[in-house]
């Protein structure tokens, strides 16, 4: 008979160890006997020393706290999250619970009857292996490399890798290199190398490296006619090979290459030439690593002669971001580097545009960036938001001057588009006559927005009040930003309007502390991290900064500045800055992983500790929004 509920439980269980090791039929049977239990926050599931239940538990939703009393003192041992298993060991050992378990938040548990599971343990050796291993190491998933051997999974993911110097990074090498044996003819070996587009081949016996031949050997020993192409590779190979163990740092690799005057190092299991081959590291691998540093990229940008070259450099910058994130380098630093690169690219494009027009700008101007580039928070390729301001000119010159700057801006936006910055769908670009204005016009514009904050003007204020100087005459930019502060200080209710607009994005926690995920459409079950979590923090920082006339755009810098301005609210602003850093990091790593803007996060694909970390960011959002509400009298805004 059909059992829809059991099928749904099966769908959940099948993704988590050890249930992923069980056949479909068996797991479906298990699903039919599951008990579903709901626990409120702090409700106890079992106490330490209780006799074991008939079920063990897997968390469907929420989180469970495991604790233990030692000498009347309570120690929290771990927090388990969705998909984690607990309360199984005492059932198998037939002993009482060694620790207590309580709901850390509202939680739904699936109880799985031990009576059914006992036969599974007997029939599936992999399941019992999993359980033995997990009992022994205390990690929840001993098969995952990431947490191997660590006592508690969460602890290890919180600890950061401190060193960020390239020299102490582990060097990347090619795994499973192509090999041939000593009898292979040079001709055959060359054919293999050509086919795989490699510049070396390792000569091995039973996967133990004996020697190596490289392009150079073929050039110097075959091309010169010393050996015949039908000779075996053993005649020309370099032997023995230089070997190293798997954990080789960049510095060690560089030294080894220099010392032995070789271009390749064989990576073997134990690091000697008597053990199994696992990889090959070429001089070339190290060069790539070095050219991928920001200084090098910025230098390359300066010499780029066209947008296509800049595009190539920008792609390398993406790689750099990825590497930084993997090494858990602070996000503040990463955004700075990427913003530097983006700014350098924009500057180079502006110079190229002047060259292309063959005519210098008629008057002074400044190129401005808006939105995330304006706030120096751009990590991924996002849309371009930009504008241009030019010096006030006499009425009779206006047409001519504006015509030049529009043409100029069009070339720039086209080139930025080639590099990979998509055109702004709302056409907020300097090539739009509305956003290519004289200083006088900008000031009038801003004054109107602040004075008459209709919803469309509020939206524009949010975008434009994060403008940042990129290139040109900085004085024009200074005058623009001073005018904004002046108008706002005269009309503080404007900030109330801005606050009201951002409060339309409520904190992303639902009633039962779960993520509010999208319910429909392509992004169903995805969490919109940009509009639900990042934007509210960005908006709040902007409003408080405008209130204090702070001339900073970067959200983290804004919160840091605000901590100085309002020492009484230091904790609040600090928590917002921290939350923002974490969220930005998430968005970026998601974006890189999925090759998109990272706007949507697939909650189901996040690791458990990541989910907890993400959830912890939501409280500051609620606090800062509450604070906005009170400070700027939002209730009085129509």
């Amino acid at each position, binding site marked *: 008979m059909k*059992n829809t*509920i059991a099928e749904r439980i099966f769908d959940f269980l099948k993704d988590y160890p050890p249930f992923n090791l069980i056949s479909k039929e068996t797991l479906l049977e298990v699903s039919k006997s599951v*008990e579903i239990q*709901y626990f409120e926050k702090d409700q106890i599931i079992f106490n330490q020393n209780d006799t074991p239940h008939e079920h063990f538990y897997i968390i469907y939703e929420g989180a469970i706290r495991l604790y233990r009393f030692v000498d009347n003192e309570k120690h929290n041992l771990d927090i388990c999250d969705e998909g984690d298993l607990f309360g199984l060991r005492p059932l198998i050992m037939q002993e009482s619970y060694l620790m207590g378990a309580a709901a850390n938040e509202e939680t739904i548990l699936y109880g799985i009857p031990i009576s059914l599971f006992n036969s599974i343990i007997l029939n599936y050796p992999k399941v019992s292996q999993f359980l033995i291993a997990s009992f022994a190491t205390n990690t929840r998933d001993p098969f995952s490399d990431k947490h191997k051997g660590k006592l508690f999974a969460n602890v290890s993911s919180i600890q950061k890798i401190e060193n960020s110097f390239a020299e102490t990074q582990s060097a990347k090498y090619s795994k499973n290199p192509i090999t041939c044996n000593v009898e292979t003819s040079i001709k055959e070996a060359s054919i293999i190398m050509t086919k795989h587009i490699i510049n070396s081949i390792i000569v091995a016996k039973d996967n133990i490296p004996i020697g190596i031949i490289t392009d150079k050997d073929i050039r110097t020993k075959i091309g010169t006619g010393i050996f015949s192409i039908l000779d075996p590779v053993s005649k020309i190979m370099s032997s023995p090979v230089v070997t190293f163990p798997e954990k080789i740092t960049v510095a060690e690799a560089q030294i080894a290459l220099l010392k032995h005057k070789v271009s390749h190092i064989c990576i073997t299991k134990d690091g000697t030439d008597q053990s199994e081959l696992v990889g090959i590291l070429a001089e070339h691998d190290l060069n790539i690593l070095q050219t991928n540093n920001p200084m090098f990229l910025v230098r390359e940008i300066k010499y780029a002669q066209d947008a296509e070259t800049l595009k190539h450099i920008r792609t390398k910058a993406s790689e750099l971001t990825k590497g930084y994130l993997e090494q858990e380098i602070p996000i503040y630093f990463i955004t700075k580097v990427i913003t530097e690169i983006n700014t350098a690219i924009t500057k180079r494009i502006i110079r190229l545009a002047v060259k292309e027009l063959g005519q210098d700008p008629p008057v002074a101007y400044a190129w401005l960036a808006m939105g995330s580039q304006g706030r120096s928070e751009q990590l991924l390729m996002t849309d371009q938001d930009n504008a241009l301001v030019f010096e006030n000119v006499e009425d009779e010159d206006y047409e001519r001057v504006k015509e030049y700057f529009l043409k100029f801006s069009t070339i720039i936006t086209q080139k930025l588009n080639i590099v990979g910055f998509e055109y702004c769908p709302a056409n907020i670009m300097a090539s739009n006559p509305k956003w290519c204005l004289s200083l006088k016009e900008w000031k009038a514009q801003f004054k109107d927005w602040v004075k008459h904050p209709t919803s469309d003007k509020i939206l524009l204020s949010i975008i434009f009040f994060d403008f940042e100087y990129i290139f040109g005459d900085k004085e024009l930019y200074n005058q623009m930003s001073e005018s904004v502060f002046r108008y706002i200080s005269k009309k503080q209710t404007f900030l109330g309007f801005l606050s009201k607009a951002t409060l339309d994005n409520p904190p992303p926690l639902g009633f039962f502390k779960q993520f509010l995920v999208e319910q429909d459409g392509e992004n169903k079950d995805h969490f919109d991290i940009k509009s639900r979590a990042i934007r509210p923090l960005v908006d709040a920082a902007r409003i408080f900064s405008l209130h204090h006339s702070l001339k900073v755009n970067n959200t983290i810098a804004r919160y840091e500045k605000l901590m100085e301005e309002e020492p009484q609210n230091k904790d609040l602003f600090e928590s917002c800055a921290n939350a923002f850093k974490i969220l930005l990091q998430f968005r970026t790593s998601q974006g890189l992983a999925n090759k998109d803007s990272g706007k949507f996060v697939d909650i189901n694909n996040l690791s458990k500790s990541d989910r907890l970390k993400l959830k912890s960011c939501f409280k500051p959002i609620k606090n800062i929004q509450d604070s906005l509400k009170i400070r700027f009298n939002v209730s009085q805004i129509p």
Partner: protein
Amino acid sequence: MFKWFTYKTYPEFFKTYLKSFKEKQPKSIEETRFVVFDTETTGLDLANDRILSIGAIAINNNIIEVADSFEIYLKQDAFNAETVEIHGLLKDGNLIKTTEIEAIEQFIRFLGNSILVAHHAAFDIEMMNAALKRMKLPKLRNKTIDTGILYKKLEGKKENHFNLDVLCTEFNIPKHDRHTASGDAYITALLFLKIISKLKKERTVHYSDLFRTSNHKGLI
């Protein structure tokens, strides 16, 4: 006299059902077996529309037990049975369908004297009663709880009248298998546990409170 006469003509399962109400009824939430159920029907007309499927799951001691659940699909007289066979029973060929009589009998056996729980319960119960009437049987005897009404007992929710979708969003219940009888029954069961737990947080909940409608005292 007449009443006694009809009683004798009732089928055995229904006699057992009626007898079970003479047993002592539990007095606390923990001791009670709640049967959360939902029906899918061909429409909203009590006289002409029919039940397509019944889904139900029991809650004992605040635990939803998948092993104690019920799911059945009904054959439809309105369709030509032969045509359905030729077309391979539409999309889901694996579904075993039973007659209305058989389905109602099985459901009554599953239900017993438990407390019935449904979202906007009145309609589902009337559909059941209509089916019972066609079998020449009296109405359901069970006490019922409407999660829609239970929700209104929460502080500040008095005036709200919400469908299951809206409440799922408020209580963060994933909307899997919406609009299948079993899926909706399961969702309603979670909703029931969550409302009860929230009610308990707000005040002392007496067992009898559950059955009171918000406007007037007495049973639903």
